C-alpha cells in the first residue's frame, strides 16, 4: 500500500473488556464487553461520524484510540504506525497528532486556570516556551476559533457553553493534530450555539485539513457534518458507509430504527411518518444476546439471528453492513432495506 491511499487512522478488531468488581475484596464478578471487535478507517482530513445509543461504546472507542485506556485486543494505526507498539519520544509525538474534545464544556475545563493557561498548557508540556511566546501562540489559536485576544486572562466561569467549547477546541488545536476525537462536542449546548460549534469544526477541517471522529447521538447533525457515518450497537459497528447512504437508505435494521426515531422540525412530515418504535430496552452489555446482538429488538429477526453473529457484507462506496438480511433470508446483498423489503414486510 502506498502512503497516498493509506488512511490516517486504521482501527482493527478493537476490544475492551472492563471487569465489574464487587464487595470489599473487589472481586471481579462479571465482565462488560464495552467495545467488542470494532474496525474502521478515518481518511486524512475526513469527518467520520460515530453514532449509537447511550452505553454502546462510543466514548470508550475514542479513549482506546488515544490510549487513555489500554485495549484488551486489536490494533490502532496512525499513518501506518501501530500506536500500541510506540514508546517514549515516538509515543509522545503520536499523542500530539491525536487530540480529544469532551462532551461537557462545563466540567472539562479547570475552573482555576485562565484561558491562557488552559490553551497554552500543551506548549508548556511539549516545548519549553517563554510565557510571552506561549501567549502569542494562544492568541493565534483563539483567533482560529473565533475568539478575541481580550479573553486571555479570563477564567472559564466567565464563558458561555459555546465559548467554553471553543476554548476546548483551541486547546486541542495547539499541537497541530492530524486527528481530533470530538466526543459529543455539541450535545450539552443550546440550539443556536450548536450550529456555531459545528461550523467551527467544518471550518477547521477545511482550513487546516484536520480529520475528526465526531461522536454524537444527534444523527441529523452528524449526517450534516460527516462524509461517512458508523453506527454502533452494544459494542460493535453494525453499519458504516457514506453519510447520505446510511441516512437516506439504511442497510441495517438498527440504523433504520435510529433514523426513523429522529423527530423532524416539520409538523406535516411528523403527522405523515411511520415511526419504527423499538421494542424493549437496550440489553445489558454484561450479558449481551447470542447471535446477532440486535436480535432481541429487531423487527426482521429470523431463526439464524438467535445463534449466528452476522459477518460484514459490502454495501456501496466501501461501506459495510453486518446483518443476516444481506446474506440469508431475503438476501439483500448490501441493498437498502427500504427498497428490498417494502413488498414483503408491508
Amino acid at each position, binding site marked *: 500500500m502506498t502512503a497516498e491511499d493509506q488512511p490516517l487512522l486504521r482501527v482493527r478488531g478493537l476490544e475492551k473488556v472492563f471487569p465489574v468488581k464487587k464487595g470489599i475484596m473487589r472481586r471481579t464478578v462479571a465482565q462488560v464487553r464495552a467495545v467488542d471487535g470494532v474496525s474502521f478507517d478515518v481518511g486524512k482530513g475526513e469527518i467520520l461520524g460515530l453514532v449509537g445509543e447511550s452505553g454502546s461504546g462510543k466514548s470508550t472507542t475514542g479513549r482506546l484510540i488515544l490510549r487513555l485506556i489500554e485495549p484488551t485486543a486489536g490494533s490502532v494505526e496512525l499513518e501506518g504506525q501501530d500506536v500500541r507498539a510506540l514508546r517514549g519520544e515516538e509515543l509522545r509525538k503520536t499523542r500530539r497528532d491525536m487530540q480529544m474534545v469532551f462532551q461537557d464544556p462545563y466540567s472539562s475545563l479547570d475552573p482555576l486556570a485562565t484561558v491562557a493557561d488552559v490553551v497554552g498548557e500543551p506548549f508548556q508540556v511539549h516545548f519549553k516556551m517563554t510565557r510571552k511566546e506561549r501567549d502569542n501562540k494562544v492568541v493565534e489559536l483563539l483567533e482560529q476559533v473565533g475568539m478575541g485576544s481580550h479573553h486571555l486572562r479570563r477564567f472559564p466561569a466567565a464563558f458561555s457553553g459555546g465559548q467554553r467549547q471553543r476554548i476546548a477546541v483551541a486547546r486541542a488545536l495547539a499541537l497541530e493534530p492530524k486527528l481530533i476525537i470530538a466526543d459529543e462536542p455539541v450535545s450539552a449546548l443550546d440550539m443556536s450555539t450548536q450550529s456555531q460549534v*459545528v461550523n467551527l469544526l467544518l471550518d477547521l477541517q477545511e482550513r487546516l485539513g484536520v480529520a475528526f471522529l465526531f461522536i454524537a447521538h444527534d444523527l441529523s447533525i452528524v449526517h*450534516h457534518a460527516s462524509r461517512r457515518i458508523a453506527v454502533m450497537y452494544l459494542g460493535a459497528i453494525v453499519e458504516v458507509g457514506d453519510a447520505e447512504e446510511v441516512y437516506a437508505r439504511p442497510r441495517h435494521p438498527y440504523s433504520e430504527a435510529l433514523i426513523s426515531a429522529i423527530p423532524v422540525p416539520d409538523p406535516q412530515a411528523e403527522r405523515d411518518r411511520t415511526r419504527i418504535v423499538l421494542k424493549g430496552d437496550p440489553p445489558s452489555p454484561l450479558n449481551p444476546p447470542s447471535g446477532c446482538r440486535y436480535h432481541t429488538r429487531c423487527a426482521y429477526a429470523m431463526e439464524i439471528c438467535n445463534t449466528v453473529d452476522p459477518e460484514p457484507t459490502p454495501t456501496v462506496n466501501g461501506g459495510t453492513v453486518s446483518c443476516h438480511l444481506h446474506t440469508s433470508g431475503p438476501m439483500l446483498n448490501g441493498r437498502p432495506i427500504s427498497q428490498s423489503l417494502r413488498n414483503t414486510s408491508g
Partner: protein
Amino acid sequence: MTDVTPPGDPAPLLSVTDLSVGFKGHTETVTVVDHVSFSLRAGETLGIVGESGSGKTVSSLALLGLLPASARVTGSAKFDGRELVGMPPRKLRDVRGNDISVIFQEPMTSLDPAFTVGNQLSEAYRNHRGGSRRKALDRAAEMLRLVGIPEPQRRLGEYPHSFSGGMRQRVMIAMALICSPKLLIADEPTTALDVTIQSQILELLKSLQAELGMAMIFVTHDLGVVASVCDAVSVMYAGQVIEESPIDEFFSHPLHPYSAGLLDSMPQSVAKGERLRMIAGTVPPPSRFPVGCRFHPRCKYVVEACTTTPPELDSVEGDRKVRCIRHAELTLEVAK
C-alpha cells in the same frame, strides 16, 4: 388542534396572564420570568421552547407553587376556574396530585431509591384517591402496563435502580398519570434519553393523551419534538414570551426574528456539508437583560427604536401573538 375540543371553545382549561417571577438577591430582585401569558384547552398540547435559562422551568414551577421561598410570584394562573397564584399550599398540593401532574427531566432524582416502585406508585394513588392498598397496587400494575413495562406485577416489587433510564422515565409517567390528571406538565421529559427511547416515550404520551383526553404543557428545546407532539408553541427568550402560534403556522412562517433564527439554524435548512445558519451572540443572564427589545443585540432586523422601546406582546392573525415592533413590516422566510 386535536378533535377533543372544537377550535374556538371559549373556556380554556388553563389561562396564564402576566405571570412574573423574581428572585431576591443580595441587593435587588432579579426578574427571571416577566409577564408571561398563555392558555390551553382540554386535550391540547402547548410546547414551551427556548434556550437554557430563558425561564421555561421557572414558569412551570411557578404554576405549581413549587418555587423556593425566595421567589416572588405575581400575575394570574386560572386552572379550571380556580386561581393558582396565591392559593394556600395545602389546597395547591391537592390540585397538584389530583388535577395537575408533572414529569421532570431527571428521572432518578424524582424517584425515591429507598422504596419499591409499587410502593411509590400506590402511595401516590392513595394519597389523593384513598381506598385500599390492594386496589392501589392493582391500579399501579395497570399503569405500568399502560406505559409499556413488561411483567408489571413482578416489577412492582423492584427498586428504581434496577430500571434502565428509559424505564425509569416511563415509571415517572405512570406516576404522573395514575390519578388521571386534567393537565400534565412535562419539563424536558426526553432530553436526557436516546432518540429511540425518546420516540417510544413521545408515542406513549400521544396515545395516553388521546385515551385520557388530558391537556399537556411540553417544555423542550428540541423543535423536532415540538413538531411531533404539540398543537401550539410558545417561544420564550430572556424571561418573556416572544411568540405564540399554532405549530403549522409557526413552522411555515414564524413571526418573530428569534423564532425564525431558531428554525433557520437547524441542519435541515441548508444543504448537506454547508455551514449551518447561526444566531450570532448568546442569551444574556437575567441581571443583564438589554433595555428595549431584549433580543435586539442579536437581531438582524434591529432598528433604532428597538433599542429603547420594549415591544408589547401583540395579537395578530386571530390566534397568534408576537413581541416585536416590526412584525407587521417583516416577512420572515424559513428555508426548507
